[in-house]
């Protein structure tokens, strides 16, 4: 059983209730057992039926708690509550027998009307709960309608019997007609007011949604862009650092807006498991941040889920980017990845110094170990094209067997196409 909410403002319970959660709410508020509160309501029944009145007033004026708290009602508690309700009824009857006329009404036809009202009110609580539970919770509305109609019939029947027992027929007829005429008149007069109420409600809801979106964007901009601008002002004497910060921020914002591959529409959610496109973009981002240059990967042919081979390919690509950043002396490196059904090719290219492949000094193990070793271990190949003064291009090829991520995406696209078809 979950911890009940701390005692504070009085709220009716939403879960673990028998009628309307009034007794439970009062018990939470006062910090006593529910049983005692229910017993108090029963005792109040002896005083001209004040228990029912008190319960009804609390039901009307106390709001339901808005947070969902899990509670369970044990069979024992339910039995106790039913026993107490029966006891309350008995107390009311006894008081009535002793000549208290108010109790007589409550137990008679008005009691029926009160029971009907309770059913309708309870349904209103349920409707509110369903709204909190979120849109689309439209199940069981038929039963709900049935309960509301039954409750309304109870109320009408109770009041009718009460009136018939106390007044003669002519007066009842006149009274009913007068009430009907008044109701129709009020309804006609207040039509514009109702219309405005409904429209204002819709307008307010739209406004709230816009406000939420705006707040989300503002929060993101604050966390990213404004922080970076503040950093840039403090680092303004170091152009290299400023460029690095600006480029990093630009990349971050771009990914947030358009996704790693540039295809995602704003507002779409990020996929839970990152594929090759995200992994390559992340590797490029790391290199950009570390070496203060621009690496802009272009991925063609859809995305693919990462397996061990592709992870090795991404790491090897990253090492090739690092090599270019360290030794080529350029401020931009091109990365191009092409996903084909049976293999993935990555090209890392710079227009920098280049080198003589046979004359690589011993301290430059990066290419031999991290790139070539890693690729051959996973069944891939490396081809190197370079010449002093002519730039360098590393071509990494990795055969793959996994199913592409995009199969699901293609299906989605096909569905969209049907929807768009004229």
């Amino acid at each position, binding site marked *: 059983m979950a911890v009940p909410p701390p005692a504070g403002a009085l709220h009716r319970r939403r879960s673990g209730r028998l009628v309307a959660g009034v007794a439970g709410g009062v018990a939470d508020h006062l910090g006593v057992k529910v049983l005692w509160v229910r017993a108090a309501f029963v005792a109040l029944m002896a005083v001209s039926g004040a228990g029912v009145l008190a319960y009804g007033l609390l039901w009307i004026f106390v709001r339901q708690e808005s947070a969902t708290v899990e509670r369970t009602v044990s069979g024992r508690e339910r039995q106790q509550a039913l026993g107490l309700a029966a006891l309350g009824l008995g107390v009311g009857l006894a008081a009535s027998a002793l000549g208290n006329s108010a109790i007589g009404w409550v137990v008679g036809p008005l009691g029926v009307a009160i029971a009907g009202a309770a059913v309708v009110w309870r349904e209103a609580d349920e409707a509110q709960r369903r709204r909190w539970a979120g849109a689309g919770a439209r199940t069981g509305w038929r039963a709900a309608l049935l309960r509301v109609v039954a409750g309304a019939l109870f109320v009408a029947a109770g009041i009718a019997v009460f009136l018939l027992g106390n007044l003669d027929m002519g007066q009842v007829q006149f009274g009913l007609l007068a009430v009907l005429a008044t109701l129709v008149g009020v309804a006609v007069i207040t039509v514009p007011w109702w219309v405005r109420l409904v429209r204002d409600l819709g307008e307010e809801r739209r406004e709230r949604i816009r406000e939420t979106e705006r707040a989300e964007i503002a929060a993101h901009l604050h966390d990213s862009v404004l922080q970076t601008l503040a950093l840039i002002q403090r680092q303004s004497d170091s152009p290299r650092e400023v460029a690095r910060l600006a480029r990093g921020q630009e990349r971050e914002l771009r990914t947030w807006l358009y996704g790693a591959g540039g295809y995602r529409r704003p507002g779409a959610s990020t996929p839970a498991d990152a594929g090759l496109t995200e992994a390559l973009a992340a590797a490029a981002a790391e290199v950009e941040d570390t070496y203060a240059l621009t690496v802009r990967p272009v991925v063609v042919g*859809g995305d693919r889920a990462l397996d061990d081979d592709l992870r090795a390919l991404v790491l090897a690509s990253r090492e090739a980017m690092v090599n270019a950043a360290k030794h080529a002396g350029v401020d931009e490196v091109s990365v191009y990845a092409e996903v084909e059904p049976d293999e993935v090719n990555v090209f890392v290219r710079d227009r920098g110094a280049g080198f003589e492949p046979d004359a690589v000094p011993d301290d430059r193990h990066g290419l031999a170990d991290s790139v070539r070793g890693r690729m051959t271990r996973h069944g891939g190949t490396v081809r190197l094209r370079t010449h002093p003064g002519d730039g360098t291009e590393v071509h990494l090829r990795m055969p793959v067997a996994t199913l592409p991520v995009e199969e699901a995406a293609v299906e989605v696209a096909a569905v969209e196409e049907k929807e768009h078809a004229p």
Partner: protein
Amino acid sequence: MTEPAPVRVFLVDDHALFRSGVRAELDRSVPDVTVVGEAGSVAEAVAGIAHLRPDVVLLDVHMPDGGGAEVLRKVRPALPDVVFLALSVSDAAEDVIAVIRAGARGYVTKTISGRELADAVRRVRAGDPVFSPRLAGFVLDAFSDRPGAAPPTDPELDLLTRRERDVLRLLARGYSYREIAGELFISVKTVETHVSSVLRKTQLSNRYELSRWASDRRLV
């Protein structure tokens, strides 16, 4: 190298700061490119271009009142000789493809250096398209024959030749036209022909990806 008459450029961007930056960069370091005018809104741009008749318009993609595509739609029917080069911070497929399909001759991002921008201006002036690596990637993706794709309705427009695909691949790898020519053992002129043909297909093809990307921005 120096041309007899400088290329007359018109700048369209709703950010005055960016306009003055580009103008300063082009005027200072590139003698054969002059900025003859600028505009900060669609209406100003339409009037200014009609009045000044520039050679090349540098066009921002995102602007109020319809953006760059709206300028293209309003100006191109009357002045088919004016060449448009789209210039944007956005890297999204929807933006890039939409403005290309509206009639721009090329697309570069705003992070491009002044020298590269001047190169791009000269190239579109000479009639050749300018494809950034990312644009080349988008076009390759749009024309790929993935399983489940709709069959082409017009093979002449909806399919790329093998050579065009090779050229696009190298563009996406960051190669210049000259480097592509060397790589494929063809002349620079032939590379330009292939890229022009790809541009035409990108603008006119009814392939699903192209029309979807363009219509996502409601610019077509």
